[in-house]
C-alpha cells in the first residue's frame, strides 16, 4: 500500500432544469421582494472605463430553435485587460467593472442582451497576447453540464489571427463559430449546440 493522495472527486453536475430562473434571476420570473435586484443584470456604470458595446446572443438547438429557458453568464477582462478577481496578480481591475454578467433568455425570443465594454487583451500562458474575448457559460434544461465557450470580436481580425487559443483549433472551418460580427456597437453571437455550425466548446 502507499499513502492516500487525499483527493476528493468533484461533485457531479446536474441540469439547471426549466426553473433555473427561480434561483438565479427570481425578479425576472416574478418572484419579487426577496432580493432587491437580480445579480449580474447591470455590468457598467458612468465611470466604467472602455468602449460601450452591446452583445446579443442566442443559444440554438439541433432543430434550429432558440432555447427560451437557457441562462448565460459571461466573464471578461476590463478595458485594460485586467480581471476584477483576487487571482489577478498582474494589477488591479477597474473598480467600476466587475466583469461578470448573468442573463436569462427572453421567454419569447430566446435572446440574451449584455450591455458591457470591450475587454482589453490578456496574456496566454506563455506571455503571448490573446485576442480580446468574453467567456460564456451556458446552462439550461437538457444540458447536463454547463458549457464553456468564448466569444471573439469580428473587428479584431489581426488579433484573432494570432490568438493562441484559436490557433489551437485543428479544424479551421470551426473558428468562425467563435467570432461575433459587429454592426455599429452591437456584436451578435449565436451559439449552436449541434449541426454544421456547432459552436466550439472547451474542456478547460
Amino acid at each position, binding site marked *: 500500500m502507499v499513502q492516500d493522495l487525499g483527493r476528493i472527486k468533484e461533485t457531479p453536475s446536474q*441540469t439547471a432544469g426549466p426553473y433555473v430562473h427561480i434561483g438565479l434571476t427570481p425578479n425576472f420570473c416574478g418572484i419579487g421582494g426577496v432580493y432587491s435586484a437580480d445579480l449580474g443584470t447591470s455590468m457598467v456604470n458612468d465611470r466604467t472605463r472602455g468602449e460601450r458595446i452591446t452583445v446579443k446572443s442566442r443559444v440554438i438547438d439541433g432543430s434550429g430553435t432558440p432555447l427560451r429557458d437557457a441562462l448565460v453568464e459571461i466573464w471578461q477582462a476590463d478595458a485594460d485587460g485586467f480581471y476584477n478577481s*483576487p487571482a489577478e496578480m498582474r494589477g488591479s481591475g477597474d473598480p467600476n467593472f466587475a466583469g*461578470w454578467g448573468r442573463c436569462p433568455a427572453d421567454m419569447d425570443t430566446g435572446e440574451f442582451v449584455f450591455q458591457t465594454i470591450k475587454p482589453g487583451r490578456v496574456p496566454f500562458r506563455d506571455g503571448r497576447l490573446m485576442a480580446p474575448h468574453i467567456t460564456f457559460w451556458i446552462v439550461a*434544461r437538457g444540458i447536463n453540464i454547463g458549457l464553456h465557450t468564448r466569444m471573439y470580436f469580428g473587428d479584431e481580425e489581426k488579433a484573432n489571427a494570432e490568438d493562441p487559443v484559436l490557433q489551437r483549433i485543428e479544424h479551421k472551418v470551426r473558428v468562425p463559430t467563435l467570432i461575433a460580427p459587429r454592426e455599429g456597437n452591437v456584436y451578435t453571437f449565436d451559439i449552436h449546440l449541434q449541426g454544421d455550425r456547432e459552436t466550439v466548446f472547451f474542456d478547460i
Partner: protein
Amino acid sequence: MSNLKPETGSFFQRDRDWHPPALTPWYKTSVLRSPQKALISMDNTISEITGPRFGHNIIGELDNDLVHNFAKPGESAIGERIIVYGRVIDERGKGVANTLVEFWQANAGGRYRHKKDQYFAPLDPNFGGCGRTITDENGFYTFRTIKPGPYPWPNGVNDWRPSHIHFSIFGDGFVQRLITQMYFEGDPLIWKCPIIRTIPDRAAIERLVAPLDMEATIPMDARAYKFDIVLRGRRSTFFENRKEGN
C-alpha cells in the same frame, strides 16, 4: 489555516466520465441540446483561473431562510421544516471561503412558483423558493427551508422527480462554476429518476444524496440534512513551467 495569498494555479482537469455525458436519450430534452463534436481541451489561462467575487454585503438577513423570505409578516411557509448545511471544499479538501451559493426548489407539494409549472399542486402564498448565502472562511454554509415535494414531469408518461434542491456554486475561478441538485436520504424515487441516471457512476450519484443528521437537528423545530459540495482543485504554482531566465 489561513490563505493570505490568492491561489493562481490552474485547475485539475475535469473528469468527464464522472459527470453526466451531454447526450442521454432517456432524458429526452438532452437529445437536441447536446453538443456532438469533441470539446477542445486546453490548460487554463488567466481567463479561467480568475472569477467573480461577491461580498457578504449583498446578502440580506432572510436570504438563507426560505421559510420566511417570501412569507407575509408573522406567517411562514407550509411543509416539513429542515436545515440544510454543509461545506464547500475543493478536490484537495480545502474549504472554499467566501463563495456564493444559490439554491432553489419546489414547495412542499412539489410545485414551483414559475409560470411554466402547471402541476395541480397549489402554490403556497408564503413560499417563493429561492435562497442564497456566502460560505464562511472555512467554506461552511447553512440555510433553513421546507422539504420540497416530489413532482411529475413530462418525459416518460410516468416520470417523477424525487424531492430535490437545486444548487449553484461559484468557487474562486470561473471554470469551477457548477450547478447540481441535492437529494434526500431514503427517497425511493432517486433510483428511478432519468435525470439522476444521466450520471453513469452509482458512487457519483450517492455524492448527491444528503444524509439526515440528528445531531444538527433542532429539537421541536427542524430536522437537518448535510450536503457537502466539492469543486475543482488547483495545481500548485511552485514550479510552473516558464521560459528559463524569466
